[in-house]
């Protein structure tokens, strides 16, 4: 065992310590002992000791494995090869202990015994194995029903919120959609063939508990179209303090319906006369605030589906983006053919025009939204923009003039040509 005086200082304190846990694994595995030693060295040097990964993988797949090697192989031979295996997680990260134990056994046999539950994209991350272990480990995984997740310029393992499994606000079946789409795109998940990574996250409602809008190129977020259902007596109970605000999630005793709910509604579409809560549903923008504060009094409507937003990613290359509304509302019924088609069409447009390492959101910025919308057959809608353009620098296509000539004005809603 290497000495780890700096890391040891991370064993105290109330939050569970990864150091303590790594030491357990290190006691069993020499390579993990080296990992600890290497980490301690980084704590001293204040620098990473991992090198660029070469290309390693399992047969036929271009993704799922991140090659990793240390720059100090002599001192820490156990870390000479220390590759990552991304194992695609099940929808909403639900497990039986049986399944998990099987996975742990595989990883004890073929790797470092160290892992992330889970990676930031959602996968189970097996951290640290040698090239020769990859294929046997993969065989064991598939035998038990598991497959690798995505990496590189591929479709990435989609993830979803717990949705209908345990949440009253799920506007569609996030788990099933996640499963279906993962299956649909298996080929693209394992064989990098896009300009760059392509992620999908599915949230059941605008609370967006998987951060889809910020962390997935394709962000599918549940929404309703009709009226919020109100139980007026429950509203009274919140006003009276019998029901706790936000289901008890706060230190606050009771709601002031006017101040806490009505006045904070972003569209100002609610009113409260002390007895009855009214909502002008046509003006509601589905922010969820009122529902969040009074889960027993208010429920989303019953005409349900999802909005499809596109383009978010972290800052590389040109700066971070949030996803942009493309389709304000789509039905979300199994087998989700509409979503599959939409995502394929987008990927096709992107693959055709995208530069190497250009996320789809960046391509939209470069080519303009119209290029995408026309390619995928989606009409312009005010919901797509927060605000129309301020500059007068806009293009006209021949199709616009043709429409105009046919007496359709300049209106592309009528004059729309694929």
């Amino acid at each position, binding site marked *: 065992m290497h000495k780890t005086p700096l890391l040891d200082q*991370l064993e105290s*304190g*109330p*939050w*569970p*310590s990864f150091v303590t*846990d*790594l030491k357990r*694994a290190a006691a069993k595995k020499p390579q993990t002992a080296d990992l600890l030693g290497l*980490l301690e060295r980084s704590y001293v040097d*204040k620098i*990473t000791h991992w*090198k660029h990964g070469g290309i390693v993988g399992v047969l036929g797949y271009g993704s799922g494995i991140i090659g990793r090697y240390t720059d100090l192989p002599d001192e820490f031979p156990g870390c000479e090869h220390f590759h990552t295996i991304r194992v695609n997680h*099940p*929808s909403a*990260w*639900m*497990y*039986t*202990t049986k*399944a998990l134990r099987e996975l*742990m056994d595989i990883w*004890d046999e073929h790797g470092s015994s*160290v*892992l992330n*539950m*889970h990676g*930031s994209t959602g996968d189970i991350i097996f*951290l640290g194995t040698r090239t020769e272990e990859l294929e046997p480990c993969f*065989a064991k995984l598939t*035998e038990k029903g598991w497959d690798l997740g995505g990496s590189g310029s591929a479709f990435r*393992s989609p993830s979803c919120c717990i949705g*209908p*499994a345990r949440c*009253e606000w799920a506007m569609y*079946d996030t788990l099933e959609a996640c*499963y279906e789409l*993962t299956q649909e795109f*298996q*080929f693209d998940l394992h064989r990098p063939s896009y300009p760059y990574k392509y992620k999908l996250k599915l949230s059941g409602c605008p609370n*967006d*508990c*998987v951060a889809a809008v*910020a962390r997935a190129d394709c962000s599918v977020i549940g929404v309703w179209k009709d009226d919020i259902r109100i139980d007026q007596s429950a509203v009274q109970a919140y006003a009276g303090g019998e029901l706790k605000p*936000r289901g*008890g999630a*706060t230190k*606050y005793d009771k709601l002031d319906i006017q101040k*806490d709910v009505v006045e*904070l509604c972003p569209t100002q579409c609610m009113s409260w006369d002390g007895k009855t809560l009214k909502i002008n549903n046509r003006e509601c923008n589905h*922010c*969820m*605030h009122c529902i*969040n504060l009074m889960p027993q009094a208010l429920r989303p409507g019953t005409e349900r589906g999802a909005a499809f937003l596109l383009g978010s990613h*972290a800052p*590389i*290359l040109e*700066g*971070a983006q949030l996803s942009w509304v493309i389709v304000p509302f789509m039905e979300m019924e199994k087998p989700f053919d509409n979503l599959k088609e939409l995502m394929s069409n987008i990927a096709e447009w992107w693959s055709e025009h995208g530069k*190497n390492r250009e996320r789809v959101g960046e391509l939209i910025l470069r080519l303009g939204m119209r290029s995408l919308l026309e390619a995928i057959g989606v009409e312009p809608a005010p919901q797509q923009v927060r605000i129309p353009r301020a500059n007068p620098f806009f293009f006209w296509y021949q199709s616009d003039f043709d429409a105009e000539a046919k007496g359709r004005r300049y209106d592309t809603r009528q004059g729309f040509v694929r």
Partner: protein
Amino acid sequence: MTERKTDIGPPHYGQFLHPVIKANYGKWKYHEIIEPGVLLHVSETGDKIYSVRVGSPRLVSTDFVREACDIADKHSQGYFRFTSRHNMEFFLTDLAQLPALKADLAAKGLPIGGTGHSVTSIVHTQGWVHCHTPAIDASGIVKAVMDDLFEYFGSHELPAQVRLALACCLNMCGAVHCSDIAICGVHRTPPKVLHDKLRHLCEIPTTIASCPTGAIRPHPDKSLKSVIVNEERCMYCGNCYTMCPAMPCFDAEKGGIAILVGGKVSNSKTPPAFSRLAIPWIPNNPPRWPEVVAAIRKILTKYAEGANKWERVGEWIERIGWERFFEVCDIPFTFQHIDDYKFQAYDTYRTSMHFKF
């Protein structure tokens, strides 16, 4: 050996659903939070399920997972799950089972919390444990910060939920770009070009294209088959290093931590928002990063004191104004805060008289 299976995808979640969840799938009516970390969901059928949320270091051993399985076997009918922020959730059908579960968790040093108006687990990344581009470690800083903010994990004392995230480099795998408080590792040295290695390891056009500011050009001495960096235009993003290992930009002393604040993801009240630069640099000080811990506590405390009910960090700052935020948190305002990155800068101007002295 059996035939090689590929492209089977993950197992269907159906087999992993707790029986009460399976029976009430899509039928949930409302929820309550019984106490910090303990959720109750009530179905239209009248069924109930209690979920107990438990912190985890995320970077764990197989034994850690097995112990969690033991707990699930004992208390949760052999089912449990992880959340989108890497906490664990165990399921109870009866509140009477809670004390026993709590005792077992306590014995393992596993904290309950992360619900409602708390600080839940910090989404984070690899750091020095497993990545090649980090400016900082990940798990270590998370441990240090969570130790300090521990009181807020198991309570609902804040004006709203506060979501922290950490990324060890500008690639931002922790997706810190939309967090209430974000910790981001930053380099501050332009890459050193290792000409000898470069010619063997890197494709020159891809390397040049990788630079967002166009700082990289072919080396004037063509025979070198290498590149040069215009250091004045380099903002140390490390993207060239990602494409070309012959361009390291690490420096033990100059690397450090930036803090960004005020991002969010949900649509509740206000729309999703990016985190904004609060502190451009704090020294990288393992093993417990006291300056980072103190800076975050300061911001969190000032927020807790100053925010209105239900206000997220960013909503609080927008209400009081950024000039006040810097003042109350005693953070100096520097050139680094002023955006100068291409098109993004444009929208951050103060183009009005709406400011305070």
